[in-house]
C-alpha cells in the first residue's frame, strides 16, 4: 500500500443516502480478474444520466467525495474501493459508513473521514457553491480544511489506521511477524481441518 499523508484537490457532493456498494460498482463489473480499470464502472448506472453530479464539467478531476449518510453499505466487494480510487478519489467524507467498506478502504489507502451530519451538509454546500475551491484532508493532523472558507474541522481516526495510512504498511507483512504466535495457537487448539471427503 502507498503511504498517504494528505489528500488535496477539489471535492464533489453526492447528496444521496444509503449509497451501497452495488451502486458504487454494479455487479456486472465484478467479473474482472484484475485490480485495475474499475473507475469506468464507478456509479455506472447513474453516470448515463447527464445531470448526475460526476458528469458536471466543474467537478471533473475531484479527489474528495462528500457523500450522504450510510455510504458503502451492503456487499463486501472491495471493487467498490478500487473503483473510487481508480476514478481518482483519495478520500470519502460522510456521517457514517458500512463496516466492511470502511475496513476495505483502510487496506487500500482510501481515507475515510467521518464528520457529523451537520458538518457534512455544510461542506456539501461549500463545494456546490464553489466547485473549484481546494479541499485538504490531512491524515497527519486529522483535519478537513477549506482554506478559502476558513472552514477547518477535526475528525477522529483510530491510531492504528492513521499509522498504517501514514506509513503505507502492508497488513500481511505485519501479521507475518507474529508467525510464532500463530504456530503456538495451532499447537494448542483443536484443528478444524476438513476431512478426506472434503479434500479431494
Amino acid at each position, binding site marked *: 500500500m502507498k503511504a498517504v499523508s494528505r489528500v488535496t484537490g477539489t471535492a464533489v457532493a453526492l447528496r444521496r443516502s444509503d449509497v451501497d456498494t452495488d451502486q458504487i460498482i*454494479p455487479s456486472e463489473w465484478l467479473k474482472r480478474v484484475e485490480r485495475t480499470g474499475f473507475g469506468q464502472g464507478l456509479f455506472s448506472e447513474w453516470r448515463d444520466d447527464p445531470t448526475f453530479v460526476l458528469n458536471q464539467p466543474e467537478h471533473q478531476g475531484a479527489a474528495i467525495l462528500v457523500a450522504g449518510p450510510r455510504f458503502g453499505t451492503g456487499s463486501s466487494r472491495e471493487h467498490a474501493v478500487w473503483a473510487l480510487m481508480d476514478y481518482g478519489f483519495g478520500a470519502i467524507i460522510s456521517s*457514517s459508513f*458500512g463496516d*466492511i467498506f470502511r475496513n*476495505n478502504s483502510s487496506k487500500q489507502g482510501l481515507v475515510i473521514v467521518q464528520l457529523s451530519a451537520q458538518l457534512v451538509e455544510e461542506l456539501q454546500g461549500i463545494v456546490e457553491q464553489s466547485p473549484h475551491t481546494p479541499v485538504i484532508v490531512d491524515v497527519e493532523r486529522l483535519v478537513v480544511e477549506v482554506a478559502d472558507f476558513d472552514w477547518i474541522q477535526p475528525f477522529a481516526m483510530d491510531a492504528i489506521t492513521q499509522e498504517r495510512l501514514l506509513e503505507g504498511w502492508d497488513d500481511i507483512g505485519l501479521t507475518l511477524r507474529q508467525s510464532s504466535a*500463530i504456530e503456538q495457537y495451532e499447537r494448542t487448539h483443536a484443528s478444524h481441518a476438513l476431512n478426506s471427503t472434503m479434500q479431494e
Partner: protein
Amino acid sequence: MGKTLYEKLWEEHLVVAPVGEPALLYIDLHLVHEVTSPQAFDGLRLNRRPVRRPDLTLATADHNVPTDPLSVPVADPTSKRQLEALDENCREFGITLFARGNENQGIVHVIGPELGATQPGMTIVCGDSHTSTHGAFGSLAFGIGTSEVEHVLATQTLPQQKAKTMAVTLTGAVPAGVGAKDIVLAIVQRLGTGGGAGYVIEYRGQAISELSMEGRMTICNMSIEAGARAGLIGVDETTIDYLKNRPNIDMTKFDSLATNWRNWVSDEDAHFDHEVVIDATTLKPFMTWGTNPAQVVAIDGVVPDPSTFSDPEERATAERSLTYMGLQANTPMREIPVDVVFIGSCTNSRIEDLRAAAAVAKRGRVASSVRALVVPGSHRVKTQAEAEGLDQIFINAGFEWREPGCSMCLGMNPDQLTPGQRSASTSNRNFEGRQGRQGRTHLLSPAVAAATALKGRFATPDEVLA
C-alpha cells in the same frame, strides 16, 4: 458476570492482542468463491506467499455460474475466465474446489452448513457479506474484502476490532403463516439499515428457538442488511440434530463433539451492550416496497406515503425509492403485478424453502404474465428436492427448475431482470439494479413468492390454499 456467546468465541480465537493494535483472530474455515478471490491469489503470487492452511480452505463456484443445464457451456467470456481463474488458483495453491457440476457445488453459504464444514464454535470468513449466515450454528462468521481474503490465505488470521454486542429477542411464537423471512424483514425494518453497525447481533427467544436450522440461517443471513457484521444463534439440540451425518462430521466422535458444541451459548447472566425486544405474536407476512431492505411493509398493507414521514431525509429517500420502483403511494401491495418470481439465493434456497414454495405451487399454475424461476442453493438441495418430487411440482405448475448458483440474487449470470421489470424475490437485497439494470426487486418469503407467481401479483399463500 457471565459471557455472551460472542465474547466466548472471541476469546477462544485470540492469537495475540498487542496493546494499542487490533487483536489477531485465528480463522477456522475460509470459504472462497470466484468473484472476490482472483486479486487475492494474484497478491500471493506477487509476494511469493503460499496458502498457510489449504486444509481449512474450501472453494466453490457460485456467483457467476449459469443455471442452464450443465451440458451448456458457460457462454459469457468474462464469467468463463473468472471461473477458470478459480480452477487454476485452487490447483496451484492446493485448495479443494467444488466447481460447476460437482455434486458438492452450490452457493457458498448453503454448502458450508450442509456439508458439515460449518460447526459450532468456529470462526468462519468468506469474501461475501452474507457469511453471517453461518452464525446460525453458534459460530462467529462474517464477510471480508479481497485484501482480507489474501490476508487469511497467507496467515489464517485476521486483525479485528472487537464488536459491541446486541441481543434481539423475539418473544412468543409467530402466528401461522409467518416464517423466518418475515421475522428477519421485521428485524431489519426495526433496526434500519445502519442500526446494527458496530455490533454482532445474537438472536434469541421462543420464536427463534422454534425455528429449524434453515430458518435460523435465513435470519442470520440478513444480519448484514441491518448493518451488523455478524449474527449469532446459540447452539441447542436443533443445531446438533442438523449436523448429524453431514459429510464433514466424524460420526465416530459425534458424542464428544456434541458435548463441546453445547457450550456455545451465552451465559444466563451475560450482559449485552444493547437489547431489542420484538413481540413475535404480532408479526405478519412482510415484503419490501423500496430500494433498501429496511423499507418493509405487510403484504396486507399499502405503499407508504412519503409525505407522512416526519424525518426529511427519510422522506427524500422514500420518494426516490418510489420513483425508482415505479410505485404510487397508498396502492395496496396485493394489487401490484409482478413480471418475474425468483425463488433462490443463500437466504432462501434450502430444502425447507423449496418445500414451502412447492406446497403452494401445487395448488395452481404460474400466471401467464409471469416468468418464475426456482434455483436450488446447491446440488445436494437439488438432488434432495428431486428425490421428493418437488421439481415435478414446480415444472407442472409452470416454474423453471434450474441448476444451483447465486443466479438472479445479484444478476452476474444471465438470469437478470430487464429494465423496468418487477420481481418478487426470496433473496436479501432490493438495491437499485441488484437483479439487473433498472430492475425493481421486492423481497419476500418462498411461500409468498410462490403464491405471487400463481396470482401474477403480490399474494399470500392463504389466497391460493383456500
